[in-house]
């Protein structure tokens, strides 16, 4: 079965991102397809490579990047939400005259249409938020 997962909260602040990750991992382990993981609201903060959690804690951002690499996942960060919160890839940084980008490997920035399209193309949309 094909899933799209929506993540509405940032890492560490709220469990939503952990729940979404463990759900996605379990779905993949069961042989399902994750069509897309869409990061919205503060969820866009899951995609900054500049996080540095303490050694004894999980690394939420790296965990997403690794899962994306292993399973060729489409991790999409909403552009409008990202601009508000300062998440940028090289193109976005250049377009908006910013001096740096911070997007983590495996993530891409795109429009809200990707969420709707995920809802259309997938058998199930599962939302994790606050």
């Amino acid at each position, binding site marked *: *079965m094909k*899933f799209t997962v929506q993540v*509405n909260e940032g890492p560490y602040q709220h*469990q*939503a991102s952990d*729940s979404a990750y*463990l*759900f996605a*991992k*379990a*779905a993949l*382990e*069961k042989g*399902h397809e994750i069509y897309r993981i869409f990061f919205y609201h503060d969820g866009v903060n899951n995609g900054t490579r500049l996080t540095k959690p303490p050694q004894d804690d999980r690394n939420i951002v790296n965990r997403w990047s690794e899962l994306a690499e292993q399973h060729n996942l489409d991790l999409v960060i909403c552009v409008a939400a990202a601009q508000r919160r300062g998440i940028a890839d090289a193109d976005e940084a250049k377009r908006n005259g910013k001096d740096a980008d911070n997007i983590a490997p495996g993530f891409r920035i795109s429009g809200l249409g990707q969420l709707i399209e995920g809802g259309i193309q997938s058998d*199930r*949309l*599962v*939302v*994790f*938020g*606050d």
Partner: protein
Amino acid sequence: MLHTVNKSPFEKNSLDTCLAHAKEGSAILLIEDGVYGATKGTAVSNKVQEAMSKFTVYALEPDVKLRGVADKVMDGVKLVDYAGFVDLAVENDKVQAWL
């Protein structure tokens, strides 16, 4: 239809709204702080007990264990792991998250 509730019933009304809008026979899965709603002897236990005659109530076991309430889960609440969560999402035609 699968309903998920991730809020403590002592803080937010997500569980109440879920119970008021879920169709008889629905699956309700308590996750994150929602799992406190599955515990015995609370101010909402009777409500949840009653709900179990209309719905199947599940709680996400990793979240129950994490919060130290594994020995307080009400009889009749079914514990599932993340694989079980995925199965519920597959078995039901859609998922509504009561945030």
